[in-house]
């Protein structure tokens, strides 16, 4: 090392350190920027839903088909999954890779439960006569919640992939940032659901 000039040392160092201007990694900043964009994406769908809120002529009305207790349980399951992923990360950062994997799989399982619950819920709505083309309520409801569900599904695949990678020893505590970024995404998807649940299900419709 001492034989190299200062310039050579700087060249060598700046590659090794991969220093960033903010001190935060590229991947994490990209995830935050992506989530900002995704906010606008869901925001536009929610805006569409709000503009058309209550237009259910020709099909079942929301208040006729909701099962709020059921959907609340489903929402609680998704919220619990956010807790599960926090636990997973904490265990990883404390060096317990096995517990990390268990809670990661638990998060994915809760996400799958949420999706299963949605699948069941949508099937009952369909049998009640709510379809993509029965009314604007049908169109906006299924497209908004469908895109949210797709985001959850992508998250589940991501989490299970991480669990598998961890099993192969590719995620030691020093590399905890990768699952941390997945957790950011997962929390975002959860927050979007809280907004959807409130705006779509909970706020009363005019009779």
């Amino acid at each position, binding site marked *: 090392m001492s034989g190299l000039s200062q*310039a050579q040392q700087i*060249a060598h160092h700046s590659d090794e350190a991969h220093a*960033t201007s903010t001190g935060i990694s*590229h991947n994490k900043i*990209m995830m935050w920027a992506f989530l900002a964009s995704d906010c*606008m994406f869901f925001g536009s769908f929610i805006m569409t839903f709000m503009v058309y809120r209550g237009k259910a002529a020709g099909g079942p009305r929301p208040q006729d088909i909701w099962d709020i207790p059921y959907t609340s349980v489903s929402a609680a399951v998704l919220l619990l999954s956010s807790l599960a992923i926090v636990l997973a990360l904490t265990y990883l950062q404390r060096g317990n890779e096995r517990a990390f994997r268990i809670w990661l799989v638990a998060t994915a399982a809760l996400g799958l439960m949420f999706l299963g619950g949605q699948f069941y819920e949508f099937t009952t709505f369909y049998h009640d006569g709510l379809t993509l083309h029965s009314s604007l309520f049908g169109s906006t409801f299924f497209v908004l919640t469908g895109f949210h569900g797709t985001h959850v599904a992508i998250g589940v695949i991501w989490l299970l992939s991480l669990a598998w990678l961890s099993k192969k020893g590719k995620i030691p505590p020093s590399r905890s940032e990768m699952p941390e970024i997945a957790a950011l995404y997962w929390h975002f998807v959860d927050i979007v659901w809280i907004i959807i649940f409130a705006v779509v299900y909970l706020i009363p419709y005019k009779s």
Partner: protein
Amino acid sequence: MAQATATQQGAQYRRSVIWEWLTTVDHKKIGILYMFTSLFFFLIGGLLALLIRTQLAVPNNTVLGPSTYNEVFTMHGTIMIFLVVMPLNSAFFNFLIPLQIGARDVAFPRLNAFSYWAFLFGALLILSSFLFGAAPNAGWFGYANLTTLPYSPGLNVDFWIFGLQVMGVASIASALNFFVTIINMRAPGMRLMRMPVFTWMTLVTSVLLLLAFPSLTVGLVELMFDRYFGTLFFEPTAGASVVLWQHLFWIFGHPEVYILILPPFGMISEILPTFSRKPLFGYPFVVYSGVSIGFLSFGVWAHHMFAVGLGPVPNSVFATTTMLIAIPTGVKIFNWLGTLWGGSIVINTPLLFAAGFIGMFTIGGISGVMHASVPVDYWQTDSYFVVAHFHYVLFGGSIMAIFGGMYYWFPKFFGRMLDDKMGQIHFWITLIAFNMTFFPMHFLGIDGMPRRIYTYQAGMGWDFWNFEETIGAFILGASVLFFAYNIIKSLRSGEIAPADPWDARTLEWSIPSPPPVYNFAVVPTVTSRDAYWEQKYGSAEPTDAEKENLNPSPTTVRGIHLPPPSYYPLVAAGGLVAMAAGMVMHGGGLAISWFVVAAGVLVLTFGLFGWSFEPNH
């Protein structure tokens, strides 16, 4: 035998050069790909413009029938915006941003390559519509419910939807990349307020892309669901409002025009100081006004909808915000004038285009601020006055600035100078022909000539100017061909360019022309704005970076590792466009369409997983 071997070796060399470009993750190569692709599409968009002008040269003309005319003006607009100005801006982002901030590449080199391939494939998808006689024909803004299935039963709108969606993915990926690169990869000492203005404008543009495109994406998704899955988003009989489309589109569409103009603002802000031989006047104001334009651009969208009937309160609010956004724009004009004032002006092609830009963009800005007044807009909207306005800001503005940027940065990209005498001729012909073509459109608009009409009656008082504009347009077309000739000739035999032909101010000029693959042998430490000017003429001792970067020693560069090439970005982009093309096929009723979509999903998934797991150090 020796000949056969030489041919074999020649063939292998040729294949490996193609493979090198298909798998490159080098931002400089990707920038060059964007540039030549966009210039090619510029010729296509220009050809469509000449078709329009030919049809409108005389009243009751029969060169283009009404349906073909609809396709021609829709594709002219769509191509010029999405296939020319946006990717030309991208070409400059790609090539320049790492160089201006003292970095060796962008934050995500493979994502960068993916952006290019997705853009190219999306562009080819939308252009392929011509081959099927089904080019998009509902305007570049695709208003519902003209674009719903009952009123647009053909594939035209489907090509439009899916082409835009694929290119939208490319844009968002690019925006993520440049946002992270600028925020996170600046050389030591390059604080935000020491960055070149072009870098600042790229940062603001990236934020606009991230926040505005989703609105378009959602509108396109809803339209697609209506057309393919029978939803009712834009079905008035179900209680839907077609105004919703307009809101979703223009919430994207207005920031989009700032996406088109802010990078050119950045280019002008670099060119003027160099050729005035003094720093940019009021750098902080130029930066803050750029940021505030970005912010305000989300608050003006309904000025595209004044005649829709939103009511006096919304109209007044948007009129006010639109007038407000003229202020930071005006601030910039004054700063540019202040930069020129008192400077030792060097008259060359980049400076001429920059000066032309200031004049032409100001005219476009003035007509724009007229539109901000609601009662005035009631007269001007949907008339040729608007066509004049946006061509002044988009051609007189964006394109002239981009041309200036090409003359300015060509030496850095290619190591050769563009012929300046030819460039000055190019400028003057452009300026004159551009004004011949577009200035009289102000008159035609005031005289009542509507937009998007395929012909007009004689005796409306429109004949003379329409004919004159057609002449102007053909001269403009010839000037573009003249420029193309300059580019080709200069690439082959232009004067070899030194690292710093203009005695410029920013870091990209501190390394050879063209730059070595690693850009900087030694990452510079920045101590002020106009970092390279400071290096050249500042009082501090020359640093190792300055000594090494123009002429690096082999031992210095030996330790530099760069990301290896990859074919996964190309594969992933291919999968994405296969999904889109499959959907268009489904619209066309082809049975294999679902197979194509499924194959696309598989290829995309394979591409994404391969990308995630390949070693990238």
